[in-house]
């Protein structure tokens, strides 16, 4: 939408030509400038700039929906109302049905807790036919740590769904729906836009690092923590997800896996 061409928007020819003459060809170019800058650049008066910007904005603005029609659409057209059920009852209840479509879900936990196993199970669930609670779909599994084990995947399939995974033909069918990518360096695609545009569930795993209380960040108005107070908890380190605050803002749902003794 941002790269929509001004020439195709149906603006009055006079103003459309002026935009083209000044090399402002997409909506992004036009809307990135303030109205006064546009007025100076295009050499037209403010009233004309305002009406052109208003028309471009109206065209580029995505259509709205009411929350009610969102619910109705999703129930009608998407599997399980827009969620991928994990078959873990407590988790599915907490997530209102399962892993949501169209947003980024992050799984965080210490090494060995079960993040990769969770991903393998989800990959299988997404491949299953709808009658078994799956999405009957294809999966892209991006494996950066070389942890994907096809044998383990099949083992999970045979034990969890023995009634489906009886023949080699089914194994081949399900296994064939999962495409495994092994990038060896930071690749170009952004996980975010994949989720937004195609309404698919996107899951990422993340590692953890330790953090002691003294490192914890505070706002300026919170003042200095009094150094004299030494509670036993202040020496305990607790786990924090890696990649920092900016990444944490970018994910929509964060599932934290931890061990309870």
């Amino acid at each position, binding site marked *: 939408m941002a790269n929509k061409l001004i020439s195709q928007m149906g603006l009055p020819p006079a103003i459309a030509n002026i935009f083209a003459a000044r090399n402002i060809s997409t909506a992004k170019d036009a809307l990135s400038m303030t109205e006064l800058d546009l007025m100076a650049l295009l050499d037209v008066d403010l009233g004309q700039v305002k009406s052109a910007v208003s028309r471009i904005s109206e065209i580029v603005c995505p259509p709205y929906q009411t929350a*009610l029609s*969102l619910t109705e659409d999703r129930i009608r057209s998407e599997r399980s109302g827009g969620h991928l059920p994990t078959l873990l009852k407590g988790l599915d209840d907490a997530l209102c049905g399962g892993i949501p479509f169209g947003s*980024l879900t992050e799984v965080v936990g210490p090494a060995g807790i079960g993040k990769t196993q969770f991903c393998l199970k989800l990959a299988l669930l997404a491949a299953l036919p709808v009658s078994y609670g799956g999405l009957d779909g294809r999966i892209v599994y991006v494996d950066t740590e070389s942890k994907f084990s096809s044998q383990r995947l099949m083992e999970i399939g045979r034990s969890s769904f023995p009634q489906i995974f009886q023949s080699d033909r089914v194994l081949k069918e399900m296994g064939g729906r999962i495409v495994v990518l092994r990038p060896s360096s930071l690749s170009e695609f952004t996980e975010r836009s994949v989720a937004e545009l195609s309404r698919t569930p996107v899951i990422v795993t993340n590692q953890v690092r330790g953090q002691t209380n003294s490192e914890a960040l505070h706002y300026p108005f919170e003042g200095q923590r009094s150094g004299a107070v030494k509670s036993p908890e202040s020496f305990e380190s607790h786990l924090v997800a890696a990649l920092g*605050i900016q990444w944490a803002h970018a994910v929509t749902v964060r599932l934290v896996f931890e061990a309870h003794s």
Partner: protein
Amino acid sequence: MEISNLPISPSHRGKLLAAGYTTLASLSSISPVQLAQELNIALQEAYDILKVTSESRNFESCNEGLGEGASLFSHSRAKTAWDMLSEERSLRHITTGSQKFDAILGGGIHCSEVTEIGGAPGIGKTQLGIQLAVNVQIPVDYGGLGGKAVYIDTEGSFMVERAYQIAEACISNTLDKFNFQGMDMRACQEKMQLNNFLSNIFYFRICSYTEQIAVINYLEKFLEEQKNVKIIIIDSITFHFRQDFDDLALRTRVLSGISLKLMKLAKKYCLSVSVLLFNQVTTKFTEGSFQLTLALGDSWSHACTNRIILYWNGDERHAYIDKSPSLPSAAAPFSVTCEGIRDALPQYKRARTT
């Protein structure tokens, strides 16, 4: 006012100056036909220039003459503080759901103002947004504004099921409250239907900063068509401006343009729209250590009228009034429950891992 400050195209301005017209007064007694001949432009263009000039002159004379005679007040857009006092007193607030939070806000989120709410991921910004989108719809008879909500989602964090849960809880809590006060239950129930609540939230899903600018420009027209929108929530204003922008100077200009437009929207409709912006958090090196601060920089921090920061105080969620022209700095605890935002309760504290 000088000709050089008029909002007309640079070439027209250049021609006026070249022909010797430097002040507005010099254009006061000229006709469009004469002007068109002198500047060698089309008649319609001359007419437009004179129209802009006379509008600017009206504004100027009103500002000069303030205090001299009541007739000037009827033209001017300026108001006295006394007039504004009665307006401010009649403004309503949108309850957040937590009484202590409402208390530090002076009753709730202010109408006709732009409020920025920032906080770390997971603190409850989206939850607060959904709660306010529901609470704004409580009918006037039951202490609300009876209005509609616009929810602009830039991150994909709006969950319809959650809106459903929060709306259901809001309806049943309001009915309980008014049942207790002996009001007519059937009338209550008719006014507060779950499907109506969901259909009064207008949802926009934004995927780039261009769309974000476009939707804010489009809102003016949208508000004229959809009467009775009382709150606009942008969740979050930061997201697309952090990822896509290399040119920070351009980012500052675009953001100030956005904040001006939003302020105009909030004030324009005397039926008072609240504008709520959510911001993310980043770290800043000040006074010898890294501290948390809201994103988008120092110039953005001037843009909003009110600023509230949501933060963790130990294991409890707190809200802090960081900036407000009328409220003192204060903090209040709140919690996020399955019913939405409510007062802090011991069972809703955070688990140890982040």
